[in-house]
């Protein structure tokens, strides 16, 4: 069965880039099939935006995420909008300072934005969340994501993002 992953937040938090990095890691470095789609149009400019990934061992036909197995929510609006779309037992990963979850969820919380500020750049909260995703889900390895970062990001910002990935990975333990 394919795994469906939805990365959501508000416009500007880098959810599209996070989805691209994660999809690239699955597709090019982990030997899986992966498709990423995004919401286009007015809803992608501010408000709750999302990047969506289908990951599978066999070719993917229908490319859209319908009921995520994993939901990343980096804003309350995104959590409220997308939580109902997720499967009942879905893994929910949240920025704990920006999202107040409903009681009964399978929730994994990390202060990603706060940790990013500690690293000096709030903008890397998305990559901290990717590190946290690796640690919590075990769906993909650290090395695969590091390769995706190396082949996607400009050298100038690579080291900061590598530190952000490590920060998210180490937070769980």
């Amino acid at each position, binding site marked *: 069965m394919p795994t469906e992953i939805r990365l959501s937040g508000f416009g500007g938090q880098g959810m599209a880039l996070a989805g691209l990095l994660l999809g690239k890691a699955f597709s090019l470095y982990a030997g899986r099939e992966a498709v990423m789609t995004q919401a*286009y149009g007015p809803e992608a400019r501010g408000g709750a935006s999302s990047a969506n990934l289908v990951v599978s061992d066999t070719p993917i036909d*229908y490319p859209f995420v319908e009921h995520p197995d994993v939901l990343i929510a980096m804003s309350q609006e995104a959590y409220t909008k997308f939580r109902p779309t997720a499967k009942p037992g879905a893994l929910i990963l949240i920025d704990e300072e920006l999202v107040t979850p409903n009681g009964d969820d399978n929730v994994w919380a990390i202060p990603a934005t706060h940790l990013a500020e500690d690293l000096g750049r709030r903008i890397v909260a998305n990559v901290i969340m990717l590190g946290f995703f690796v640690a919590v889900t075990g769906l993909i390895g650290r090395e695969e994501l590091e390769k995706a970062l190396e082949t996607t990001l400009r050298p100038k910002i690579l080291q900061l993002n590598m530190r952000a990935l490590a920060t998210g990975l180490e937070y769980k333990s």
Partner: protein
Amino acid sequence: MMGGKAVLTGQHFMNGDDACAEGALAAGCRYFGGYPITPSTEIAERLARRLPEVGGVYMQMEDELGSIASILGASAAGARAMTATSGPGFSLMMENLGLGVMLELPCVIVNIQRGSPSTGLPTMAGQSEVMQARWGSHGDYGIVAYAPSSPQEIFDLTILAFNVADRYRVPVIVLGDEVIGHMVERVTIPPADQIPRWERKRPAHPPEFYVHERFKSFRADEDNLVPPLAHAGEGYRVHFTGLTHDEIGYPEMSAETHHELVTRLVNKIRHNAPDIIRTESLYLDDAQIVVISYGCTARSARRAVLDARAAGIPVGLLRLISIWPFPETLIQELAQTAETFIVAEMNLGQIRLEVERCVRRPVRGIHHAGGAMIHPEPILDAIREAAGLR
């Protein structure tokens, strides 16, 4: 900024628009004349950055009429040339698409379809320009259109489009859609020496040879009805006009010349259809039920056919990779053994009517006017119903 790589050999995680642009570069496209429009904009954006790196020209035109006119000019001067647009821009290109057909100038026109008609749904998918791709310009003519189902395939088909355009001196349309244009998937780009290349048919002799007798840009060879193409500026004294013309290219207002010319333009594609047509077959050998689909919708059709096969239903999929020319013979052959035909497409019946014309019986259509890709479920429901399971 010269010295960039034209062929980005390797594996990429790339959207269909970017893959289309890279396919064009790999095919040797060195001129893009365009007017960006959603959801094709990423093609223009990428080529605006990439073409100067490889010694090519990106020309931001004033509108879509100018865009297609400019690629015809670039083609006449010898370049592999392309433009990319979506519904509203495609409509504006129709007049000069016919000029390209009449002048027999190879070029590639990409239409990343969105919800239509008119301004429609700029950011959402459509497949409603199937008939416009065939008949959108005035007059009788032959045309070629390919419909990719993945980012990898739009890369491959953009290369094929350039090759077919050059071999047959005809504009070729890449009829994509927003789902394929924007979805991100693995794209494998082969080494540069493995990119297939079909050349234009060129004059048999250098310009000096044609002193006493003019070179004839429109005298077709008997073998495939394609005349050799001399480029403007090479010294062959070429003349191009949209008026009905003689073999040199000068206007000739006669019914005989017109009939002969237009008939050749149609037959050039018709007679060479076996070389141009591309289809993909899945489980068709023993299929009693045949699903026909193309573009993004074919992905859902494949899912539905695989699920139905797993349930023991004798169903197969014919995926149209080329839409035009239409694979009439293949569908007529399938109609000898298969009972039921189902067409799934994101319009209200454009290819269904073509299939009905071939199979001479009513065809079940799974249609949607556009804005949302058709889900596998309604296609699976139609297959089950055809199998008497509902």
